[in-house]
């Protein structure tokens, strides 16, 4: 039920591999803290890999939006990678699918930052 977030560096892009559920409570708090931590350390190119995330509630959607605004307000880019059909569904319902830049291919996503 809980979620894990692992970060790795690909060139100057920070990739966050998320696994689990992003829901009100531990999941969304962990995500918020990770974004704050990356922001504070000056990471301006953030790619969130949601391949292993099948469940996001409205609180989790709120955290994705906050992550997006936090990074872009600092002059950076926040993009999404490997969305499951269920997450695509959620982003379409909430009209956020057009707000985020979304990729299915990691190499293409990394290239898009430069």
């Amino acid at each position, binding site marked *: *039920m809980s979620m894990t977030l692992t970060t790795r560096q690909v060139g100057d892009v920070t990739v966050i591999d998320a696994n689990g559920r992003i*829901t*009100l*409570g531990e999941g969304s708090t962990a995500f918020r803290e990770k974004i704050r931590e990356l922001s504070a350390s000056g990471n301006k190119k953030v790619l969130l890999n949601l391949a292993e995330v*099948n*469940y996001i*509630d*409205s*609180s989790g*959607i*709120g*955290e994705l*939006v*906050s992550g*997006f*605004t936090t990074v872009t307000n600092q002059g950076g880019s926040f993009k999404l990678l490997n969305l499951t059909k*269920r997450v695509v569904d*959620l982003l379409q*319902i*909430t*009209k*956020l699918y057009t*707000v985020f830049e979304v990729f299915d291919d990691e190499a293409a996503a990394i290239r898009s930052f430069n």
Partner: protein
Amino acid sequence: MTQGSDSIHTDIRLDSKLESVDRGEELVLEAARGIGFDEDELHRIGIAVRESLVNAVTHGNRFHGRKKVHLRVLISPEQMTVEISDEGTGFTQAAVPDPLSSENLLKHSGRGLLMMQAFMDEFSVLPRDAEGTLIRMVKKRHPG
């Protein structure tokens, strides 16, 4: 609307804690599995119920130690009805900002009602005699 042939699967009062959200979601999913909803429908039902329970615990009862969230699940071979009520001060649906309007699109919160409406076949906010809010949601089975 509920029908005369519906039977009660769950009728429980939950504490106003986040742990109750997980418990309530599980109870509803157990009922939904029992009448044959598929995995995608279970996902949608789970999210809608979760959003409603979170609202009842956080906005309705505001985590109050003595206030309860009432969860009732009615099932029939054709549909499932979920009723979630709180003991809060109630709210007016029309006063809730539209999360799809451009000025609200990047707000952190305010998408719960939208997700409930999108994922269930029927959604209504009903006034209660005493206090609080009753949310009734219906999911129909679509054979085949």
